[in-house]
């Protein structure tokens, strides 16, 4: 008999260990969000029936149940309300200090985002930050027995340099 190894030790891609979204259209109906990101646009879905613009994007409007939605742009600049610099217990895939901020995008929209391109001690409350888009490792999709790489981007915010 032959004893086979643990598959991931043989170099196979385990999507259940992938910290990033499975963005490809084969796996995700909101893949336009990521395609828009690639164009440096920060977008969400707007309900054509009732006008609600929830974030993150949806495939069905949670207010009126319509599935007639369109993509709209959100602001790409905001202001830091609070921030934190995590120095211990940072997950693999991120570097210490791992900086996060509560960002006010205006119009009642606030979100917690990672802040990149920023050194420890550099960020201040009230600072202006803007959308940062960067490449992340591709996900590997099996198509008819062939492993194909699907390229991906993700986002954070970064200080606006004066």
């Amino acid at each position, binding site marked *: 008999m032959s004893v086979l190894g643990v598959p991931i030790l043989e170099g196979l891609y385990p999507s259940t260990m992938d910290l990033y979204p499975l963005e490809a259209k084969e796996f995700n109906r909101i893949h336009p969000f990521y395609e828009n990101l690639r164009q440096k646009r920060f977008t969400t879905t707007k309900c054509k029936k009732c006008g609600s613009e929830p974030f993150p994007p949806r495939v069905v409007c949670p207010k009126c149940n319509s599935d007639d939605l369109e993509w709209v742009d959100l602001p790409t600049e905001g202001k830091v309300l*609070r921030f*934190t610099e995590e120095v211990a217990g940072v997950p693999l895939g991120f570097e210490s200090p791992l900086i996060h901020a509560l960002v006010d995008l205006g119009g009642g929209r606030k979100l917690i985002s990672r802040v990149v391109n920023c050194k420890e001690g550099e960020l201040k409350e009230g600072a202006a930050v803007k959308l940062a888009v960067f490449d992340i490792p591709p996900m590997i999709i099996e198509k008819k027995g062939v492993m194909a790489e699907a390229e991906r981007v993700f986002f954070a915010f970064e200080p606006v340099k004066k």
Partner: protein
Amino acid sequence: MPDRKVCIIGGGMSKWGVREASIVDMTQEAAKDCFDDVPALKRADVDGLLFASSYCGRRSFQVNAAPVMAERIGLKPTSICTRVDTLCAGGSSGIILATGLIRSGMADIVMIAGGEKLYTPQRWETYYSELASIDHDWDGAQGIGLPPPFFSMTAQEHMKRYGTTKEQLSAVSVKNRRNGATNPKGHFQKAVTMEEVMAARPIAPPLGLFDCTPVTDGCAAVLLTHEDKAKELSDRPLVYIRGTAQATLHSMSMNWPGEHLADWLHLRTAAKKVYERARVGPGDIDVAQTHDCFTISEIIEMEDLGFCKKGEGGHFVESGQSDFGGEVPVNTDGGLLSCGHPFGATGIRQAREMLHQLQGRAIKQVEGAKIGLTHNLSGLNVEHTILIYGREP
């Protein structure tokens, strides 16, 4: 349809800590301790098992864990046998569900067991897996993980808005580690001084090492049944589940429901409902176990549970109002800060401590306690779960 009164009749725990054991081992230990607590009960009489665990699927590669645990414990449930996952509140969710099933006559004697094996053979996987605890595609991908950064910002908000001090945060840790020092089942049996807490290495400032619950392996189990069966099985005072509530108003970092991060509207929403259902107010609570995942959490919980006014939680803790001899002793067995937090087991640990308090047999007893409250927050502060127990239904 019957409307039966529901009692908690027994509780058990495995040893909690960094365990050289699997989740299946620790579940058996907790169930043994629980059956030892109710000697008159036979395994064959238990007709339900709810197993609360979030990470068995990821860190023990075991989904559909309830039948596995039933088989190992030696149960043959015929009314209900299922897993419950509400992360930090899983155990409490199991108790709420079991209460409904027993009250309505759909089950008679239900064991709620649960816990986690969080330490993996390589430590990176322990932390990395925490990215699954929150909204994976949006928050996990931002590296928010289990939430020290989120609670760091919450603490800053409370300090700036209400003048809460690092000493007041530390007072929570000093109290809970002192309470836990005599609890042999918890992760730590060692009190810490104010100086040690203040000087501890930073995790996400202002939160330091002793402001955060540790990563802990462990399991716990309790037994619930209806009033008549409870009288038959034990001569101890009856402890009733008087009211329950669970509120969730958002699920991701964009849609925070409160005015600011230290304003926990979802906790107040759950509190209002549970007090109505239990027909009591915050002033009637003799003892409480609240979710001290971080020191700042316990301070805000004192406020939004109604034990003190908004903004006065820091002073409430510092002045001893949440300690023995104060207004309402909180986390009498050490809480999460001393016992640790194997997510699915925590609500069950709290229920067991409440059973002991209301039966007058706790290790650190609140004299004459008649009404108790347990509380969990779960995930990236997305949900609040509260139960009220009492010596009267």
